[in-house]
């Protein structure tokens, strides 16, 4: 087997977040409309590696994904050792807008999954004019919790094992083994308490049922795409959310679960490519 280089390139951005200096790792591939990808809770940018190596995407989109501080290759801010990480709507929104501004992205598309899909709704409600389109994967304005997050970070339970064990059932049975286990590996290596800290945002600070009425899809198109095997953000959660937003397009994805882009990249592209086609058409300069 011959060696080859993938087109993905990684760099670090130094910026300020919540009044603190941070070092943000991001990677990108492709040219065209900026497509900023937001990883799931307790995970990192590697979830989007398949999208970044798909010429059908990268020939017309500049796919960019960044690791939130505390995740992947983005370290926590200085002093982290004496604090408990807890993400909030305010902090999450700030870092997305800061990242897009610092990279001088003009009208990017933002696509987030799970908690990344949740925050997309806040962007749609309050910052729609900054984006060309928004895509929420496994996204809803609210969903019912299904486990006690205290299990995620305690000294007598292995954090990586319990995080991966909990979310393993969110992968659809049809997902190929290689992609399934890579998806789980991403959860096995998360830092202690990081998944739990993300879920503070997801569980305690992002009930967006109060703001879906503010979303104007004429300003920024909104797509909500959910896998039928996702029992965390269920098809019903997404359908209910979409029904409350005039003009939102809901796509239910068969044979996919909570991590469509990483658990079954071949299946996912069947659903995401038509959406990207539509966004590309809408973004084309009017003649």
């Amino acid at each position, binding site marked *: 087997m011959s060696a080859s280089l993938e087109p993905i390139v990684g760099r670090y951005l130094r910026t300020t977040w919540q009044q603190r200096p941070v070092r943000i790792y991001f990677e990108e591939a492709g040219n065209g409309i900026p497509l900023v990808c937001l990883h799931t809770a307790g995970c990192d940018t590697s979830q989007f590696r398949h999208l970044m190596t798909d010429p059908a995407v990268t020939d017309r989109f500049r796919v960019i994904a960044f690791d939130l501080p505390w995740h992947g290759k983005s370290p926590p801010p200085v002093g982290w050792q004496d604090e408990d990480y807890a993400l909030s709507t305010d902090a999450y929104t700030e870092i997305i807008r800061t990242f897009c501004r610092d990279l001088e992205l003009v009208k990017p598309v933002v696509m987030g999954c799970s908690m990344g899909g949740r925050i997309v709704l806040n962007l749609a409600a309050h910052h729609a004019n900054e984006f060309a389109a928004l895509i929420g994967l496994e996204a809803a304005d609210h969903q*019912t919790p*299904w*486990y006690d997050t205290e*299990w995620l970070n305690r000294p*007598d*339970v*292995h954090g990586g*094992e*319990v995080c*991966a*064990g*909990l979310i*393993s*059932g*969110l992968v*659809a*049975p*049809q997902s190929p083994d290689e992609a399934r286990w890579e998806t789980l590996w991403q959860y096995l290596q998360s830092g202690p308490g990081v998944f739990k800290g993300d879920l503070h945002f997801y569980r305690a600070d992002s009930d967006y049922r109060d703001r879906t009425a503010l979303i104007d899809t004429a300003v920024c198109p909104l797509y909500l795409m959910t896998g*039928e*095997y996702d*029992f965390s953000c269920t*098809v019903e959660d997404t359908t209910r959310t979409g029904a409350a937003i005039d003009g939102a397009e809901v796509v239910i994805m068969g044979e996919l679960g909570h991590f469509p882009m990483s658990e079954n990249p071949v299946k996912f592209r069947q659903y995401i490519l038509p959406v990207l086609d539509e966004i590309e058409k809408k973004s084309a300069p009017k003649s």
Partner: protein
Amino acid sequence: MLHTLPELVNQRTTLVRRGRFLCVDFRLSVGDVDYDITVNHGRLVGFTSDGGLLRSWRFRIAAPAQTWLAFWQPVPAPGYHDIFALNKSRLARLEGDLYPFMSNLRYFKEVIAIPRDFNFTTEQDLVA
């Protein structure tokens, strides 16, 4: 066929190794039938359904037979594919001291998934 579960677990060396720190008594309730299962360092060394003998267990996984039948299909339908999906919808219940279960999640998930190889077609098959 469920009575073959110990043999099928014990011949899976990687699964047994994964459970090497685990010793616990737990109960698997399939409808009205309670299976009391003893794990000793990852091996299933006790598996009885003699019921009513006042056996103790640390935790119990319980669901109606028709729920287990759906869960144990080779490719389960959405909502029936994971024990936590069943617990969220209250089709199954996890009871008792969940520490051994939660601290050995992958082990238990793999053990209870083994009957998907049995090709159950009816509820009667489960207890045959």
